[in-house]
């Protein structure tokens, strides 16, 4: 029986529209990143600085929204009901971790879990939506929507290629994902906000700056110090939570069955 009870109608035109939006979004994201990295515009608040900040903000946000528009209409109902739970868990677990005074974020566990259970498209959609909703409470996260989409996308990709079949592979995949996400998100922090939004991370960037690094280089190095560790831990915790799910629950996701995401564990 179809998992949706009502079969989803997908026409060629619909599929082509999704592919087109995904391509435009990806090209916009990569193009903006390459442009910023290769030109490294001078002046953050004078001359071209304001334009660069606005253009970076707009391009990263537009890319994220295009990716969301490409993915959202195709998501099955089982994934759609999972996403709000994941978004709420991102916020609540982030707050819970903050309340125990440990120097971690862990605010993307829900996004990574969706990527593990429902695939990279659902993971990317969760990342963008999570940022859009979180921006209602903290508007500065808005331009980081593309980075959040990347976290979900990479989690789904890692699960598809077997990162959950052995428990030690999950943090390794998280480590690599953290590097990619840190590098892609650094230009937003550098050119939109002129650095970072936290005092601790700001001190690290300041230390690199005082050693003679450019702003983009200092922010990228800071991101490479914090993001891989955080994502490795998030991937590990999300994997442990997925292992703890009853088999009938995790096996209910088509992605988990099709790509044997849990390997031997899935056959219990």
């Amino acid at each position, binding site marked *: 029986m179809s998992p949706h009870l009502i079969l989803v109608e997908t026409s060629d035109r619909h599929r082509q529209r999704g592919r087109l939006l995904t391509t435009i979004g990806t090209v916009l994201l990569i193009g903006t990143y390459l442009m910023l990295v290769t030109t490294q515009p001078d002046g953050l608040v004078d001359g*071209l600085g304001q334009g660069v900040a606005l253009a970076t903000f707009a391009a990263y946000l537009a890319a994220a929204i295009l990716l969301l528009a490409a993915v959202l209409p195709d998501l099955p109902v089982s994934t759609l009901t999972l996403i709000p739970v994941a978004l*709420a868990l991102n916020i609540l677990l982030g707050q819970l971790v903050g309340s125990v005074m440990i120097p971690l974020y862990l605010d993307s566990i829900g996004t990574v879990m969706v990527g593990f259970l429902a695939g990279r498209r659902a993971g990317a959609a969760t990342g963008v939506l999570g940022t859009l909703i979180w921006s209602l409470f903290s508007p500065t996260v808005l331009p980081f929507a593309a980075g959040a989409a990347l976290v979900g996308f990479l989690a789904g990709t890692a699960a598809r290629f077997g990162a959950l079949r052995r428990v030690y592979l999950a943090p390794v995949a998280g480590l690599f994902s953290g590097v990619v996400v840190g590098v892609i998100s650094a230009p937003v922090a550098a050119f939109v906000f002129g650095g970072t939004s936290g005092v601790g991370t700001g001190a690290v960037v300041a230390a690199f700056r005082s050693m003679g690094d450019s702003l983009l280089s200092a922010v990228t190095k800071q991101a490479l110090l914090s993001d891989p560790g955080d994502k490795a831990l998030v991937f590990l915790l999300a994997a442990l939570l997925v292992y703890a799910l009853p088999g009938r629950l995790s096996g209910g996701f088509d992605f988990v069955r099709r790509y044997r995401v849990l390997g031997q564990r899935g056959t219990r």
Partner: protein
Amino acid sequence: MAGSSLHPFTILAVAAAVVATTTAAGIWWISAAVITGCLVLAIRAHCARKLVLLSCAIILPAFTSQLLIHAVAATHGTRILLAAGPVTITAEGLGLAAALGLRTAVLVVAGILCTLLIDRHQLVAAIDLSKAPPQLGYLVAATLFLLPQLAGKQHAIGQAQQLRGVDAGWFQRLRLRSVPLVLGSLQDAAIRAPHLAARGFPATGSRTRWRTVPDSPCQRRIRYAAVACTLLGPLAILAPVWMGA
């Protein structure tokens, strides 16, 4: 609430236009005037205290970070105010940090004011009535209304664990609260899916909605003008600078 007679998209479009043009202008007194204007609006809507508290929680760490990066570890500027070891404070660095702080403050204050003025039920209804995919309205609504539910569930789990006498270190506390919360929430989501699917979700075609969102031709015109301002305002401000460069 002052925003209740306004369509949520009108508030968002005006805020986007204000933030985009103020950022493009990059003039300190315009940014300060926008922030003051937001505070006046918040006072009229009786949410000034909330606006100040929520905004400060974001702006203060961001501004401190910008001070550290651009003022304390300044790598440019000729007017040196203080030089001690790796710390070099220049007047230009302080000016840059202040300008970046103001830019961030405009975004934060305008954004949070929007959140305080917009009624979440109206926002969900407005998304549903718009041309956005029906899934988007569901996801926004479900997340906003799940948050307090899950927070309550998390509190109940914490109390239950305390009653059991489990009050170990932070890791155990985190584990014993988060694992039941996550598993229970995913179980609920799995149960919800077939019920929603059986009711034809996501619905295609038009449906009757009981909730109406306040709107008017005047508001629609304001929205179009605000969107045009968001796109063209920065271009109009920055084009002469680019030509000069």
